[in-house]
């Protein structure tokens, strides 16, 4: 321990330094490394000073391997979806941020993969690139419910205000999946993708106006509109006979069951509008409406107005006939405001066209778009036992027109104070007699024994 030793016994050099590593003072020869002398090991903790073990022996801290893999997965998903660089960068930034948040740092790798997909999804939405959650779930091969849950948690944590999904935007991307160009199918069944998409978008807009889209899963609606659009572009017998099943097989997409119902709903709407076409003499039914679809879509705003007006008149006539008070002008049903306002010029132009093509109908001119979309508010409520307002308007959400049958509510025990007497007999009815309890115990024992054997 004396400081006067200046020569290393091992190599004889005089290059000896004091080394305070690891809480033990040592004198070490620089040339050969042998310890010349050492002090007593201290037994008090000096704290994490600059001589701590982890710091002296640490190598450069590597970034988390799973984070790197996750970022690569994000990149891969972006490349598959063929999004632009901005979206890719955004997704990677979000992923890094979310990954390191405490809510996601310790979840399973599977969930982290789902998180990668959700980051791509939210970036696409923010930068106006239409992608559905279904697509992401498909890419990740994950349960859509799990994807939804992770997505909602992620936007809450990262505090992102993502715009809502708009079906029209996704329509085009969706229609690309259908392989029905002339390269894939025989000529008479083939359809140009541009025409197909254009008509399908118009059909979707019409569906949205007439309450078919709100609250529903978007993909079956898109499938239904593409199918109907394909049928109506060449409404010959061959195409009309082809079912949705066969169509999906032909186009090499997976059929979705709800699409059948959507097709029926959309056909009903088309029929309601088809009836208003002035030059169509025969009755419009779901079977022959496809021939009229082109006209319906071209003049759809005007036809909507007409249909609503006709409906109004019918209801007024009905209520007058049954001797009730005539309805005030305001309460008359008109859903015109909902579609009319964004295309205020077109309908009038369309109306003139319609009128020019056929005999004039008595009702014409500008109806101020009335605002209430519901039917008569007065009306038959006092008469009908359970007034279904959906049946009284022309267009209503299908869940209102065909409501699910609910379990009949029992007449409730009203006027309960919470502090009434509780009768003993009632409580006793909930308790087993001793004999019952014994028998129950015996049965349980027998069952458990038989299970063991």
């Amino acid at each position, binding site marked *: 321990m004396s400081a006067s030793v200046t020569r290393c016994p091992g190599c004889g050099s005089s290059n000896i330094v004091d080394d305070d590593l690891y809480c033990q003072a040592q004198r070490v020869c620089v040339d050969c490394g042998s310890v010349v002398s050492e002090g007593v090991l201290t037994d008090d903790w000096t704290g994490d000073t600059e001589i701590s073990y982890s710091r002296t022996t640490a190598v450069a801290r590597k970034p988390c391997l799973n984070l790197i893999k996750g970022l690569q997965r994000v990149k891969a998903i972006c490349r598959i979806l063929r999004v632009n660089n901005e979206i890719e960068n955004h997704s990677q930034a979000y992923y890094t941020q979310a990954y390191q948040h405490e809510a996601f740092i310790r979840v399973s790798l599977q969930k982290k993969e789902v998180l990668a997909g959700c980051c791509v999804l939210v970036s696409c939405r923010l930068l106006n690139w239409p992608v*559905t*959650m*279904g697509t992401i779930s498909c890419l990740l091969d994950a349960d*859509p*419910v799990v994807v*939804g849950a992770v*997505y*909602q948690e992620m936007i809450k944590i990262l505090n992102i*205000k993502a715009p*809502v*999904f*708009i079906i029209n935007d996704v329509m085009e991307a969706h229609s690309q999946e259908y392989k029905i160009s002339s390269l894939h199918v025989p000529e008479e069944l083939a359809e140009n993708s541009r025409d197909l998409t254009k008509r399908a978008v118009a059909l979707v807009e019409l569906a*949205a106006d007439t*309450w078919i889209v*709100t*609250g*529903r*899963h*978007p993909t079956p609606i898109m499938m239904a509109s593409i199918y109907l659009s394909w049928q109506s572009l060449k409404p010959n017998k061959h195409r009309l006979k082809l079912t949705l099943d066969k169509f999906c097989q032909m186009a090499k997409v997976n059929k979705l069951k709800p699409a059948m119902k959507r097709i029926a709903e959309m056909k009903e709407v088309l029929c309601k509008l088809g009836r208003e076409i002035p030059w169509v003499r025969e009755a419009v039914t779901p079977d022959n409406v496809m021939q009229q679809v082109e006209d319906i879509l071209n003049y759809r705003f005007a036809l909507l107005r007409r249909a609503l007006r006709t409906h109004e008149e019918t209801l007024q006539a009905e209520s007058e006939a049954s001797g009730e008070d005539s309805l005030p002008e305001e309460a008359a049903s008109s859903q015109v*405001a*909902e579609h009319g*306002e964004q295309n205020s010029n077109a309908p009038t132009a369309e109306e003139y066209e319609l009128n020019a093509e056929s005999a004039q109908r008595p009702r014409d001119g500008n109806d101020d778009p009335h*605002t*209430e*979309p*519901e039917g008569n508010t007065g009306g038959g409520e006092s008469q009908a036992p359970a007034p279904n*307002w*959906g049946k009284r308007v022309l267009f*209503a*959400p299908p*869940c*209102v027109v065909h409501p699910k049958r609910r379990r009949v509510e*029992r007449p*409730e*025990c*009203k*006027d*309960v*104070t*919470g*502090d*009434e*007497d*509780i009768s003993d007999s*009632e*409580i*006793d*009815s*909930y*308790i*087993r007699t001793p004999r*019952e*309890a014994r028998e*129950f*115990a015996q049965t349980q024992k027998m069952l458990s024994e038989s299970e063991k054997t």
Partner: protein
Amino acid sequence: MDQNNSSASPFQGLSSPQGAMTPGMPIFSPMMPYGSGLTPQPVVANSLSILEEQQRQQQQQQAQQANAGLPGTSSGLTPQLYHSQTVAGSTTTALPGNTPLYNTPLTPMTPVTPSTPASESSGIVPQLQNIVSTVNLGCKLDLKTIALRARNAEYNPKRFAAVIMRIREPRTTALIFSSGKMVCTGAKSEEQSRLAARKYARVVQKLGFPAKFLDFKIQNMVGSCDVKFPIRLEGLVLTHQQFSSYEPELFPGLIYRMIKPRIVLLIFVSGKVVLTGAKVRGEIYEAFENIYPILKGFRKTT
């Protein structure tokens, strides 16, 4: 023993003697704070007069319910507050037929109806569909014994660590834990929830456990109503983005998180609205009165 469900009561620990779980004398202390939804009543010394008083109060209550009613309630179900406990009665000796000066169960203490004039009120009253409440029975329980000796109980420890018990009237379900805590669900009003919880506690008592009825508290209330016109959810989520979340691929309704009162509303395209997260009835009514003009006005402008 039977106290109100306001947690401010200093009498929660007071339990009636064994076997006397009938609603006995509601003893109120003058210390009870005003504005908690209770009327301080005089401490009645004489047991006979207590019974008389109770009878009179019940009569009064029935009379009041027949007469008075909050404006705008269409269904006849008066939106009562926390309890319809016999709160009536003035501080002087209650004479039969005397309309009390204040604090009847029908006078709102908290703003049940909003301060907007009656002409603007929606005229629709949300109906309560479910009440979740908790109570502490105050003693450890042997779930195996309960499951063995009660007819209406199921117990599967591998699946869930509580006994699931059901009673017929009011139609409710209770989860009874071995710590003595109990959750009661399925009632349609606060009073029913309380009555049901008391019945469960009685069953447990009859099975031989020294059950009490401590800290009864309503944890959640769910209400629903129908505005009878369709709602454009896509538009609503655009204008109220900071409160709404609408993902048709995940759920058909729009989830609206109102800040004041702190209620979550599920709004559907059919016009049906579900309100949940309330601790008191007034919050549900208030939330609906807040959302109704939004839904109505929104329906006009689109």
